[in-house]
């Protein structure tokens, strides 16, 4: 039983969404099942990470078909860490949604689809087969399409058209890349590909496949020239949906990029330079975009793009320190971005708007809540000793060592832009004098909610804030973990060995 622990978080999410479909229409029951199930999922993921850290990479050959013929599931330290973070974010958002999503949307199967989305995310992290990765990506985007349109307001539908088109296109490009790679090697198993691809003679076609992968995953992770769908759609759905989207959907693209470019396509200087240029431009354009926006949610959307740049920078430099920085940033970013969108939802619930020029006086009215929200905001900037600070040191050092002074400058510049954005946000929303807003009828303001609902709003924010405080103050542990992950990514021989020899 225990040697198959890696599949349990996956099976649990599938089980939850099936059970939730049976509980169609029963709103309260669905809320309870979702929260309890997510807690169990968190426990499973924690056990999995512990097992991986103590016993090394875990694998499972689905259907007992030996690699490279069957579909392999692999949990190395990287995948297991991300599964744990996904479960954590899933629990927080599940608790948050049970308070913030209106019953009509829950009745249309919100929670069931939500767990399908988490299933897709966990599957994408755990799979060791490139076509299977495509299938998990499809599960992710189909569920996210439903979540983004659920409710069917005008802005949602318009955003969904853009979101749908570009994500569908990205999947097709990804599929094309798989076709080219399969034609070249005749294999789909990533560990097998890592052995076969360096031996190929037709380097041009390998480069074509690599670029296709870069574009496909680039659209999904919203890097520089391919990000326009994100700010056009992410601010339209309810804030709980935004939280899971902002926290995890782009990160799964980043994960796929890191996985593919550290395992299959290696040592191409052209590709590395392309990645550096893309990353620098992503940092720049995301930061500038966030600066000019007036809608709180759009500000956060642009910040997602900006901070994707940090991870791509780490991948592009491809030294151990740089990768450790990228992985650390990924860990920090998942927690922080999920939290930020939940905070924007809370602000919306308190004031009835997220326009920065209309907000104000939050600190005056809710000083304790404001201080709670201050911690994630400052972590986002990376004020030492909070969580955003440590990975930037690694990235900075790596860029200095590899003499990428442009990257050094841009990492500092993007951090500065983030600081300005957060300072502006704090001044506008929290410290500015409260402008009298007209009372909205039929709108449930925060202070009119029941106390239990209010706790459900605040508890997940407190949880994630505590986690990001831990990441900041316990940075030693996270740094050790990231260094280990980076080491495993660079010396990928043990990944290949774990997949190819383990034939249970």
């Amino acid at each position: 039983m225990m040697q198959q622990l890696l599949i349990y978080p996956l099976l649990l999410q599938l089980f939850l969404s099936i059970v939730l479909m049976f509980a169609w229409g029963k709103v309260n029951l669905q809320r309870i099942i979702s929260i309890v199930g997510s807690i169990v999922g968190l426990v499973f993921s924690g056990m999995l990470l512990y097992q991986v850290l103590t016993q090394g990479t875990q694998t499972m050959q689905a259907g007992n078909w030996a690699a490279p013929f069957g579909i392999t599931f692999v949990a190395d330290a990287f995948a297991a860490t991300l599964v744990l973070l996904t479960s954590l974010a899933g629990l927080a958002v599940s608790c948050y949604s049970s308070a913030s999503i209106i019953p009509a949307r829950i009745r249309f199967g919100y929670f069931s689809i939500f767990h399908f989305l988490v299933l897709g995310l966990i599957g994408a992290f755990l799979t060791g087969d490139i076509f299977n990765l495509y299938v998990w990506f499809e599960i992710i985007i189909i569920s996210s399409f439903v979540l983004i349109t659920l409710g069917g307001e005008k802005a949602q539908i318009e955003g969904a058209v853009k979101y749908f088109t570009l994500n569908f296109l990205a999947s097709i490009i990804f599929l094309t890349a798989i076709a080219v790679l399969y034609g070249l090697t005749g294999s789909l198993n990533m560990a097998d590909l890592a052995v076969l691809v360096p031996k190929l003679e037709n380097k041009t076609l390998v480069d074509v496949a690599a670029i296709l992968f870069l574009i496909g995953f680039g659209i999904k992770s919203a890097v520089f020239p391919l990000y326009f769908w994100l700010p056009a759609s992410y601010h339209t759905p309810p804030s709980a949906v935004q939280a899971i989207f902002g926290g995890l959907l782009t990160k799964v693209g980043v994960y796929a990029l890191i996985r593919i470019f550290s395992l299959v396509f290696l040592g191409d200087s052209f590709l590395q330079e392309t990645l550096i240029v893309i990353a620098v431009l992503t940092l720049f354009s995301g930061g500038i975009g966030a600066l000019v926006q007036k809608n709180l949610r759009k500000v956060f959307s642009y910040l997602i793009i900006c901070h994707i740049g940090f991870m791509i920078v780490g991948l592009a430099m491809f030294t151990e320190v740089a990768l450790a920085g990228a992985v650390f940033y990924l860990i920090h970013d998942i927690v922080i971005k999920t939290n930020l969108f939940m905070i924007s939802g809370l602000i919306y619930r308190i004031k009835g708007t997220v326009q920065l020029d209309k907000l104000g006086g939050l600190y005056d009215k809710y000083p304790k809540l404001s201080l709670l929200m201050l911690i994630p905001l400052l972590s986002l900037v990376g004020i030492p000793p909070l969580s955003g600070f440590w990975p930037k040191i690694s990235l900075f050092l790596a860029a200095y060592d590899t003499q990428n002074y442009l990257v050094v400058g841009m990492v500092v510049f993007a951090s500065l832009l983030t600081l300005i954005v957060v300072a502006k946000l704090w001044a506008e929303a929290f410290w500015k004098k409260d402008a009298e807003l007209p009372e909205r009828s039929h709108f449930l303001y925060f202070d009119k909610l029941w106390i239990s609902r209010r706790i459900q709003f605040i508890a997940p924010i407190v949880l994630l804030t505590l986690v990001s405080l831990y990441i900041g103050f316990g940075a030693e542990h996270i740094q050790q973990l990231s260094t280990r992950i980076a080491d495993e990514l660079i010396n990928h021989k043990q990944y290949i060995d774990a997949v190819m020899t383990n034939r249970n």
Partner: protein
Amino acid sequence: MEFLLAIITGLLYAAGLYMMMRRSLVKLILGLIIIGNGANLLIFLLGRITKGSPPIIGEHEKLLSDIYADPVPQALILTAIVISFGLQSFAIILVKRAYKVVKTDDLDKMKATDEEV
């Protein structure tokens, strides 16, 4: 056969991209469907076409002795078709909703989410 399929695949990609760059919502969906079919054909083509030798091991043999058709691309295509079936039906309903709500099928007029509100 390979030559013909290669040309058809190229045509499907080109036609799909052309349709996607039109202004109309319906043409956008058509373009996505066409380009998806192009990708499926590409997998089929790159999986090497072998005629008339199915991958079936004879009764008295233990291994395949002859050249055989690779079954994996077909499984991949089937999976991709099923997935795009779901996506396309979603897309069609989405387009219908979009037309009802926004009251236009001109993509240039769907820019409310990009404007400063």
